[in-house]
């Protein structure tokens, strides 16, 4: 028996019962964009087990400060100031250091800086709505921003998205790639939202709801919300040279 560090193994099987299916007709755009054939199961090969890694040297000082990274000198974005922080972990509860987390959001009035967003709420001239961070040695990330507002969208006649921040996360493997959304504790729109309701499991939805974190709140400055993200775990061994069925 070898006693060396094992080669990186395939990922834990994705639990699709905790993930939204492709076809969720109450979220209308999914109807014509959902594959209808079964997915082809493929235990990760090197092509999926490997993945890109990004260096801290690509980051600018203000990349994780959305209050200031688009603001004119001496000015800042308008809205409730918040700190969003948490850890990126895998399913074995191990931190994932050195992974890229990207985030984007509407401004405090629910308006995105995007030419296709025509909502009546005003653009904030000092708010871009985009940032990124790379987790530290403990898998920890944080950024400052303003709390986004809810906004209406053309799905049902009177559908409103809860306040949310979009997250895009890289693990160490391309098969860990994940995009999700963070919601805010206590928002009554969460349980009315067709996009939230694409997730079939209530406990799974709750894992996207960030609690208010008074321990991390900065007095007289900004409140804090804590949002941990879990990516797929990884088997630690890999049995090679074994054909299927042997």
């Amino acid at each position, binding site marked *: 028996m070898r006693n060396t560090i094992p080669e990186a193994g395939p990922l834990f099987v994705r639990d699709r019962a905790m*993930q939204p299916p492709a076809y969720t007709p109450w979220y209308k755009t999914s109807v014509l964009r*959902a594959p209808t054939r079964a997915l082809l199961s493929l235990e990760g090969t*090197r092509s*999926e087990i490997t993945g890109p890694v990004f260096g801290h040297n690509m980051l600018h000082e203000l990349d994780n400060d959305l209050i200031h990274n688009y603001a004119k000198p001496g000015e800042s974005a308008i809205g409730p100031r918040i700190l969003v922080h948490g850890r990126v972990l895998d399913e074995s509860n191990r931190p994932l250091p050195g992974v890229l987390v990207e985030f984007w959001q509407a401004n405090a009035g629910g308006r995105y800086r995007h030419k296709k967003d025509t909502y009546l709420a005003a653009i904030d001239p000092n708010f871009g709505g985009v940032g990124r961070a790379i987790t530290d040695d403990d898998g920890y990330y944080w950024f400052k921003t303003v709390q986004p507002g809810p906004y209406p969208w053309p799905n049902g006649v009177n559908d409103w998205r809860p306040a949310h921040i979009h997250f895009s996360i890289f693990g160490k493997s391309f098969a860990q790639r994940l995009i*999700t*959304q963070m919601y805010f504790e206590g928002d009554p729109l969460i349980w009315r939202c067709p*996009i939230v309701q694409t997730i079939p499991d209530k406990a799974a939805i709750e*894992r*996207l709801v960030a609690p208010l974190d008074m321990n991390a709140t900065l007095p007289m400055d900004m409140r804090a919300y804590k949002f941990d993200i879990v990516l797929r775990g990884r088997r630690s061994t890999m049995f090679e040279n074994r054909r299927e069925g042997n």
Partner: protein
Amino acid sequence: MVQPLGYLKESPSQTAGPYVHIGLTPNFVGIHGIYAEDLGVGALVNEKTRGERIVIRGRVIDGSGTPLKDALVEIWQADAAGLYNSPLETRGKADENFSGWGRSPAHFETGEFVFETVKPGRVPFQDGRLMAPHVTLWIVARGINIGLHTRMYFSDEADANAEDPVLARIEHKVRIPTLIGQRDGDAYQFDIHLQGERETVFFDM
């Protein structure tokens, strides 16, 4: 009672939404001054990259035949020698002038995505057999609840494709052509059909 296994569960996915570009390619939608350039956008190659230059073009097409104007596609591939530029690559050091990863927003009017890259070398499957050259793709967009993984193989690699252990897994052989990029000069055309008769094979990997 037995001991609890103690595993966490993967965070649930949510759609990237129609404004995914704000976060992933802000300069592409006119948000300048935050990042010097959009990550992964533009050529994956420089003048020192080893290998045959190719272009991959395609569109993501919905069940009505309409190209998505708001999709975002990422690719991940080996270098010309079949090595991945990843800390988890154990077989050797990949070309340092090739990251292997790229990101392309669909064109706002045509829906086309484009990657300027090199043709990847062959990579071994778990049992040591060589897979045919391929590029892994990941597709997100409004209306897609969880990112879709697929692969593009190359139409001018018929012999390698015929012995590829992943393509061999596809029970309905009529679906294999949905994974083959069609060579046209130095470019490969690879349209991704989300549903319908020509629905692309997507992987649970």
